[in-house]
């Protein structure tokens, strides 16, 4: 299931001398969207604070499909692509709101991390179950 995870705008500050949004800010928007897609499977800000665990990115794949310019309006939709006992893979799709064109897709591979031990740890069973329920259908990506 895809959920809306970001709704924003390209700032002039995010654009480089080629006149478009610099690659680092695509990743920045994926990072912001991640907190929303995690919340959608129960890894909410309160869960992270109280349980002291959260997914940490270990690998990312990005396809830059369209350039984005200052003032362009953006929407990110995200979902869970794969899940196992310690691992979650999230999918993110960034769309230019005005044109409807997909500007970027990204897969972020994560390992669940214990924020005190700074080591991998098992996903909470309820989170695991929720992620499995909401896995993206084949063909979504």
């Amino acid at each position: 299931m895809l959920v809306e995870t970001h709704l924003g705008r390209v700032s002039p500050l995010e654009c480089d001398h080629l006149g478009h949004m610099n690659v680092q800010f695509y990743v920045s928007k994926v990072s912001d969207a991640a907190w929303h897609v995690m919340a959608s499977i129960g890894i909410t800000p309160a869960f992270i604070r109280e349980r002291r665990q959260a997914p940490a990115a270990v690998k990312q794949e990005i396809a830059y499909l369209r350039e984005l310019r200052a003032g362009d309006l953006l929407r990110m939709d995200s979902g869970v692509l794969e899940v196992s006992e310690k691992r979650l893979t999230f999918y993110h799709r960034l769309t230019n709101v005005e044109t409807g064109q997909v500007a970027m897709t990204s897969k972020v591979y994560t390992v669940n991390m214990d924020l005190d031990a700074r080591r991998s740890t098992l996903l909470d069973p309820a989170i695991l179950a929720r992620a499995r329920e909401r896995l993206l259908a084949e063909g979504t990506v």
Partner: protein
Amino acid sequence: MSAPTFITGRGAINPWECDQWGHLNVQFYLAKASDAQAHLAVRLGLPPSRLRASGPGLIPVADRALFKRELRAGNIYFIRTGIRAVSADGSIDIASRMINQETGNESAAFETRLRWVAQDRTRPLPWPEDVLALAQASAGALPELAVPQPMAAVLPPGQPDIDRLLLTYRGSVEAWECDSAGVAPPRAHIARFNDAITHLFRAMKIDRAELFASGLGSAALDYDIAYHRPLRSGTAVEIRSGMLALSDKVFHLVHYVLDSASGEVITTIVVAALFFDLAARKSVPIPAAIRAEAQRLLTGA
């Protein structure tokens, strides 16, 4: 009949947007509200491509921002916006609410007056007919977005007596703060007010580090802002500030952003603010020593 509302923003709060008091700094609330307005503009037939191609532009001329609950690093939020009214004078009034998506609590309320202006970003123009029709079709009562009480009438009418106000900021407007037309957005105004308050505190003999060490922080509750003129790249600006009113917990002050060369007022903001306990995250009465200094400023003004 109720007018529709639209989701116009969604995001997360990052530590680099938070200030020394551990919460989202005021300038970023306004930055997120500005982005949300751009999403509403699409509903009015003003997508980025049309705005880029157009000489005229869409600007805020007044903003009311009420800060109701803190947002802290790690929080997630969304913004909902609706159109309250389209006025005969050519303004469109919109309302936005920033909601903590996890708790459902309203974190901030924004009431913004928009105008369509010429390329000089000053001279009002009639709205394009299609935009006006779309705005009128979507305007009306917004029961989900209750109209806030007006701010206390603490600002004396008429022109400010600048010489009796404190100089609390001096700087310049830089290109990287501005849009492609060279005009700075609301965030740039708010960032300067944020700097000015530290200077006003200094005049009140408040050392921010000492305040922090005593377990107290300060927070804005309510902003009433009038944007009189565009804040343009390259302008030398200063802020003059004064204390307007004091109560047990809340104090009101005013900042004027001035063009240093011409002396013209670019922006006026009336602020209601308070002190709070950093551990309990609850407001406290204004400490006696600070109250005495604030009273001195009040009398001086």
